[in-house]
């Protein structure tokens, strides 16, 4: 297990380095420059040059990259061009917000999706299955923008029962913070429920048709025991993979929800950084998401191997 994890961490580091190079090079071919962004399109060229010089973006590309990465590996994320403050607190705060929302959504959607999928599978082909699947899949294709606005208009304005800003007042406790996250979480739950439910359903149906399940039923085990001990364990495997791949989306891909519900997550931060050619902030934001994504897949792989001994044996070889 230790070799397995070490190997994965090593691969992850290389991936992150390549990612940083790609982001850097992509940043070079984007139009515009940081000084021009800060001063606006109509600013005098001399002012733009002066500002680019203070940022150091007028240096050779390799020098810029080296100066950035040599600081980054020492834990210094640098200073944001556009905001003129240290990047680290901005990224950490945004990541914290994103993780909070992601965790809240996960806690709701994972049990709900698995329960829905298993319940549908147990009635495969019957109306209950049809209803759950159709509703789940339909909700998956509703864009966050649409469901978000409908929710805001209904619950935030017409009924006025839930806050439409995901940002709690400063100093609010965890319950208040979660209360503010209810509305923004719903569009995400709607989107993810369909995926997870379908994976859980498919896994359960496959497990139900397997030889070991038939054996378990034929040897007279109670239905409940068959489901919890034999079926669920196997049907969960693909579900975990699907859930883990959604972490990247939930952390970095929520720009629309963050914008609509006024929430400062890392997705919006990256978009802001990319628009402003704010290279230190862009690199830090993307690498942090990369790290979270890799940790999530690693955790999923470990869970997977715990549930499925075959993987464990392969990895140990």
């Amino acid at each position, binding site marked *: 297990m230790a070799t397995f994890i070490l190997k994965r961490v090593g691969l992850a580091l290389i991936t992150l380095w390549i990612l940083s190079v790609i982001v850097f090079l992509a940043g070079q071919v*984007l*139009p*515009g*420059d940081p*000084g*021009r*962004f*800060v*001063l*606006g*399109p*109509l*600013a*005098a*060229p*001399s*002012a*733009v040059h*002066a*500002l680019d010089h*203070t940022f150091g973006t007028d240096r050779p590309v390799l020098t810029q990259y080296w100066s950035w990465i040599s600081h980054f590996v020492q834990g210094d994320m640098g200073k*944001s061009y*556009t*905001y*003129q*403050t240290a990047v680290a607190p*901005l990224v950490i705060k945004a990541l914290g917000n994103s993780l909070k929302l992601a965790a809240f959504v996960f806690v709701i959607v994972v049990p709900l999706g698995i329960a829905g999928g298993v319940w549908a599978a147990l009635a495969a082909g019957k109306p209950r299955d049809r209803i759950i699947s159709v509703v789940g899949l339909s909700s998956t294709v509703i864009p966050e923008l649409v469901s978000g*606005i409908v929710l*805001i*208009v209904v619950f*935030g*304005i017409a009924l*006025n029962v839930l*806050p*439409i*800003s995901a*940002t709690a007042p400063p100093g609010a406790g965890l319950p208040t913070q979660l209360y503010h996250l209810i509305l923004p979480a719903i569009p995400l739950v709607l989107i993810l429920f369909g995926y997870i439910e379908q994976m859980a359903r498919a896994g359960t149906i496959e497990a139900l048709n397997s030889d070991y399940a038939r054996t378990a039923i034929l040897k007279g085990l109670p239905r409940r025991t068959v489901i919890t001990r034999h079926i669920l364990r196997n049907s969960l495997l693909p579900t975990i993979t699907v859930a883990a791949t959604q972490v990247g989306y939930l952390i970095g891909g929520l720009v629309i929800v*963050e*914008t*609509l*519900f*006024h929430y*400062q997550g890392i997705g*919006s*931060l990256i978009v*802001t950084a990319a*628009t*402003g*050619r704010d290279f230190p902030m862009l690199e830090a934001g993307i690498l942090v998401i990369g790290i979270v994504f890799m940790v999530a897949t690693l955790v999923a792989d470990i869970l997977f191997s715990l549930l499925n001994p075959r993987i464990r044996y392969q990895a140990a070889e």
Partner: protein
Amino acid sequence: MDRNDHRKLDQLRAGQSELENHYVDELLAGRLDRRQFLRKGAVIGMSSTLMGAILAACGGANNSSSASSTSSAAPSGTPKQGGTLRLAQQAPATAINPLTIDDGGGLNMLAQTGEFLVFDNNLLLTLQPMLATSWTPSASGAVWTFKLRPGVTFHNGQAMTAKDVVYTFKQLSDPKIASNALSTFTSVLSPDGVVMVDPMTVAFHLESPNGHFPYLVSSDNYNAIIVPDGTDFSKWQSTFVGTGPFTLKSYTQNVGASFLANPTYWGGKPYLDGSAYTFYASQPPQVLALQGGQVDGIVQFTPQGAQSLLNSSTYNVIKLKSAGHRELSMRNDQAPFTDPRVRQAVALAMGRPQMITALLLGAGQLGNDSPFGPRFPSTNTSVPQRVQDLTKAKQLLSAAGHPHGFSAPLVTEQYQEIPALAQVMKADLAQVGITANLTIEPQATYYGKATYGNSDWLDSTMSLVDYGDRGVPNVYLEAPLTSSGPWNAARFKNKTYDNLVKQYVAAVDLGTQRQLAGKIETLLLAETPIVVPYFLDGLTATTQQVHGVNPTSISAIYLNKAYIS
């Protein structure tokens, strides 16, 4: 006006300069209405007491116009003390650095704690003293002297003197540093021209005469807040030190800012205890936040997507005339636009009132293919308004050798209603046989390096761009249209025009300005290097409990007289 009034008026006129008396003549002749008189008088430094007395003496002689007031603009009833006003605004795009700020969100932050020498009151369309109590031009208009307000202290306790003002303007006008005000001050003011006369007097020696200079040191030039001598501008965002009615409580990037009333403010402590701004990345959540009761107002909004605010009596909507406009340039050096008849045909194809109704929901004013709009008193309104005339447009095209029209690329930017405007223009042009091939680009791609040869904005055959609000049309007459202008996307080169603009900029008195404006407007209509379809109104919305807010059309809002009932 009776004999008594005449005598009073003569006494008042006796002590005044030639220029000041010229404005009184203009007022008496009816060429200036009361509002314009106040506005122009303010530019040349006439005190409001004097102007009030003159207007009183003129009595009913000329009361044709009154400010288009709105319910929340003028506080009515007894202002209520206390409370925190919650406002939504666009998130500042960059660091809050007075030198570099360029966006609406950022400049409103400067205006919360900072103050200018002069305040351009957009509600009354007049200049008012702020940190300067009076200002006078030299006879030629090349030197302007500002008397500073005594007894003003910065939020750090330091007294404000000429030293601070000189430091501020030397930095703003220094071509060697990253100052956004250079777009205003280049070839107008250099650091050496900023001179301390005495501790309470500053003189500006300009590179050439400029009759509009007070506007360039007013709130229109949003970078020009007065900061203490020696301020490190890049660190200003940690203190927000200014002289204004509010002091900084907290500022968080991308989240919001809060301010506290300044008990020692020279203009008297504000009614509010403070203000709290929430930053948004886009407009729809701001509208929803106002409707959901999470904020009391929106600093500035655009009509598209805000129908619910414009059509509702639940909110006070303040409409301000603004010089913000859209400009379609045609390359005068590229066929088929080398022929002025072709350019006129393009302009004649535009259905302007329909554009204002459909795209701005009525919140705009007609444009007449020049930067002169209803916000400027110098605009010569005797020049006829261009109206849609498809027959004439087709005739002109035929005469120019394009009886079946032609096709040409039209490049524009992803910004506010502009993509929709480009579509409307394309449809209008199709009616006279012109096919406009649209390309709509993100702003960074469109502007590029903003120099000739490196910018789709400046290089495209047809290019549709946005211009924000300014207090005077000078920059818009010079940069996009003069032969040596840096933003001349039309490549318009016309010696007569260049000379007229030079004279207009230098002219100190309104009569001359308006006469020259008429010539410029006529010339631009004949040549049509650009199409200006409309001017956008500045829009601010609050709940009905909010009174006395003073927004400007550049998206700053002043809260020193605001209160919540």
